[in-house]
């Protein structure tokens, strides 16, 4: 809901009645009532201070100020931790260079917000004089915006100081709006904006233990489900204490799951889990793959995200069926790689013909081209990606003293990739790892390094047979089915999604809580929104493992979520 709507009282989200109805329908379909089951009561998660990601920052700004605000900036990427960039936010530091980027972004954003073309609908009041301070108007704007950006009501001291800064700057610059912009910049670079800090308080239900305070719980919910800061309604629910009651939390979660903003959350999670950040630097040799352009890269990523969202949210499909489904979307750039297919401008629904081997996500260009070399396919990279990204397994790095003599002059000696990687299996130092990657990747050899279908390589017919953990198949269709039936597939999704939701989890926590999530996921027909709901409603999601580090600092801050430690 854009900022202007906050003031006007409009409510673009579906009503809570609709949300509850969705919940009822969803659970009825899954054979359950709209009950609240929070899982193991001894389960906890860890409190983090997560650095906000670029996408979260942009999504939040868009919610608060609307889509007209444009930002051109590049925040430093996080390290991938336990398979997820999101977890890297829990350990990422801020360098001098990054801080300057935050400041530059804040300056550009604030300037647009107070610009003549935006101020009339983004600033809810008019100053008495435009060339001087106006405390009342500044307070009205900064208190509301500050609460949304910093995800809890501004500390009264901070609010007073921010308004005073706006006033002093307005007087100095002889411009109310310029003063407001400078104060807004301060809010945008403050630690309360840039760090998503899990603040805790004693848990009355578990004496001696901690729980997230209401606003931190709201933030954790919102960044998980929407990849953005909480909206006004969620903050109100936090303020009322609703999130501490089962019904109140369920109401909030179901509203969020029913919101169009869920799409941003679902896309962000899968974009991270599938390591699509690599697309930013993926490249193909245009001499070898002339049909593969920069547009293909963008569309390959988008095709998979569209397919996933459509299947798991719109159609409420079984997550596992993503790997056997023939339903997807097509664009003109991708159609060039789908021989014999034409596509109108934009995106169109597309069902792969029944006799086509292009079945499921593994045969989409994003996976095939994303895990290939710039000039050729790679059974090893594809097999490794399947194991690491989709089954949460770790494929060891090659040994440093590996003997490459077996692979010399591969062009001359090996007509196909199958023959070439066979050399890996013949060398004991290589075979250990290549045995777990190559038989998977070889099943995708009917697709070249750009993702285009082929039946031959260098004039030699391609043998696309292989096996996954002992389950044999003859082609990519069989691989998709084997992966679909692999119990590691949903288990990996559960592991990644829980870790993503809490900003990183450890083995101890996971041991307690993951079995419960896996069981629920299975019982819910492997429906992703139900898994999101299960996680969001769990005790682990809101209970914190360790007491705060500095109990001596305990203080009560009025209207900021209670006790902070």
């Amino acid at each position: 809901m854009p900022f202007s709507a906050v003031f006007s009282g409009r409510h673009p989200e579906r009503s809570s009645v609709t949300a509850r109805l969705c919940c009822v329908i969803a659970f009825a379909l899954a054979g359950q009532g709209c009950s609240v089951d929070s899982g193991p009561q001894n389960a906890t998660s860890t409190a983090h201070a997560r650095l906000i990601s670029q996408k979260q920052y942009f999504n939040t700004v868009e919610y608060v100020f609307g889509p007209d605000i444009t930002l051109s900036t590049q925040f430093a990427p996080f390290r991938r931790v336990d398979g997820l960039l999101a977890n890297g936010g829990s350990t990422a530091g801020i360098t001098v260079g990054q801080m300057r980027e935050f400041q530059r972004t804040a300056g550009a954003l604030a300037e647009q917000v107070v610009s003549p073309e935006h101020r009339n609908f983004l600033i809810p009041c008019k100053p008495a004089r435009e060339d001087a301070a106006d405390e009342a108007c500044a307070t009205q704007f900064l208190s509301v915006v500050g609460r949304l950006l910093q995800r809890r009501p501004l500390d009264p001291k901070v609010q007073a100081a921010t308004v005073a800064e706006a006033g002093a700057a307005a007087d100095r610059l002889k411009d109310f709006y310029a003063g407001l912009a400078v104060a807004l910049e301060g809010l945008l670079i403050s630690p309360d904006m840039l760090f998503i800090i899990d603040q805790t308080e004693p848990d009355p239900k578990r004496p001696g233990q901690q729980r997230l305070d209401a606003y931190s719980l709201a933030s954790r919910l919102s960044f998980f489900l929407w990849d953005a800061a909480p909206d006004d309604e969620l903050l109100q629910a936090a303020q009322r204490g609703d999130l501490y009651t089962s019904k109140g939390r369920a109401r909030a979660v179901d509203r969020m799951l029913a919101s169009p903003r869920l799409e941003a959350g679902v896309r962000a999670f899968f974009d991270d889990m599938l390591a699509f950040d690599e697309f930013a630097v993926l490249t193909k040799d245009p001499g070898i793959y002339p049909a593969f352009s920069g547009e293909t890269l963008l569309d390959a990523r988008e095709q998979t995200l569209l397919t996933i969202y459509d299947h798991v949210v719109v159609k409420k499909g079984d997550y596992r069926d993503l790997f056997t489904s023939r339903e997807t979307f097509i664009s003109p750039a991708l159609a060039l790689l789908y021989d014999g297919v034409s596509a109108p401008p934009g995106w169109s629904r597309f069902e792969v013909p029944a006799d086509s081997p292009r079945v499921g996500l593994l045969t989409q260009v994003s996976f095939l081209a994303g895990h290939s070399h710039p000039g050729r396919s790679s059974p090893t990279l594809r097999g490794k990606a399947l194991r690491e990204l989709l089954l949460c397994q770790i494929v060891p790095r090659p040994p440093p003293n590996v003997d490459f003599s077996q692979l010399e002059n591969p062009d001359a000696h090996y007509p196909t990739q199958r023959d070439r990687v066979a050399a890996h299996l013949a060398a004991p130092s290589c075979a250990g790892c290549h045995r777990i990657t190559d038989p998977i990747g070889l099943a995708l050899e009917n697709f070249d390094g750009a993702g285009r279908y082929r039946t031959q390589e260098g004039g030699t017919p391609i043998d696309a047979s292989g096996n996954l953990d002992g389950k044999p198949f003859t082609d990519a269709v069989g691989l998709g089915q084997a992966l679909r039936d692999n119990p590691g597939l949903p288990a990996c999704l559960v592991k990644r999604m829980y870790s993503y939701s809490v900003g990183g989890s450890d083995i101890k926590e996971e041991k307690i809580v993951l079995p419960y999530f896996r069981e629920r996921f299975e019982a819910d027909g492997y429906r992703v929104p139900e898994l999101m709901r299960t996680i969001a409603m769990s005790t682990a999601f809101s209970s914190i493992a360790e007491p705060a580090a500095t109990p001596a600092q305990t203080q009560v801050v009025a209207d900021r979520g209670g006790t902070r430690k």
Partner: protein
Amino acid sequence: MKNLRKLESLGRRRVLRGMLNGGIVTVGLPLLNCFLNDNGTALASGAPLPVRFGTWFWGLGMNSKIFVPNKLGAGYDLPEEIAALARVRDDINLFTNFNAFRDSSPNICHYTGWVIMRTGQAPTGSEDRPGETIDVTIARAIGRTSRFPTLTATATGDMRTSFSYLNANSPNSAEPSPLNFYSQIFGADYQDPNAESFTPNPRVMARKSVLSGVLDRTREVTKIVGSEDRARLDQYFTALRDLERQFDQQLTKPEPIAACHAVTAPAQDPKNGIDSDAVAIRHKMLTDLMVMAVACDQTRVFNMAYSASSATTIKAGYEKPHHTTTHEEGVDSKLGYQPTASWFTRRAMESWATFVEAFRNVKEGDGTLLDNVLIYATTDHAWARVHSLEGIPLFTAGRAGGRVKSGLHIDGKGTTAVRVGYTGMKVLGLDVNSWGTKSNNTTSEVSEMLA
């Protein structure tokens, strides 16, 4: 007379700051005919020309048979893989027969080598980033007065291609876009030191005031997080302090700098991708901006990466990228080396020569900018095909204000490569008695390169 001497001792910044007295004025300044002292070795203020430090990186080492010269010392021969260095041979030093010792740590392919040479320490695992990189250490000593403590760029198009970090979780991201790099350095916040007039931006004064509130708030927030997060908040606090310093600088008229010239904004970024031609173009564009950023005293510490450690640079029409080529291309029986792998290394050496030349092309004082820099160029392996760390090559370029010689091929006699970086630290005036750990620990400078 006494008063006059007192006035002479005031720097231009101090005079202007006094004139401003917190208010907004425009100060007309005649462009000085003489930016330097009479003998061209110091700024007009009397301060000596600053000595700067930079790094350069190329991935995947070399083929020693066609890379390592036969002759040591000055006037060394240039085997075919480094033939491109002919135009800068006398401006660089080539160090061979040095080692990166991993001791009991594993040899993490394409990682251990560069980390040792940039930090003096062998990482214990692929997630381990020990210490801080040499540029960060040196920037702490010499980078406090320039606008940017460090500037980091990469020709790979990937901002993650950086060999600079403060700690395990804080890499200095590299700028891959020439357009963005221009904007970052010479965009709206750039103050031309040779501008005829100077008007402090009143908005900056307001920003500085607001920033003090953010600093106060950070102190409070730091109290409510755990110890690990507290360290991150402390780092954030330090970054805010740097912002404050930047605001102060923006409110102060900079000293004129003769070597600093107007830079034209790039019309557009080079095409995406990492084929070697695109990389060379991107590298040249970023280099030109970096060189002028140094000449204009926007930074005194800089990092440039030509390629990643396991470089994926492409040769048009050849199916394998550089890294894969080093492992899968056979050693040509007639040539005695991997021809395509060598082709990639030669392209890297061409760009290294371009980088050095760009500093030499800027006149500074009686000489060139290259006379007042020391550039430390490293790689990840000696022979990438087998991930070797023995005999790993490295370079320096420049003469560090006359403190080092150039034009030499220096034999490391199997000692740690960390010695070259340690020598750089000493040359830059750092008060360090040793650098590195375990077998890479050294107290021994490379005396041959010292003037």
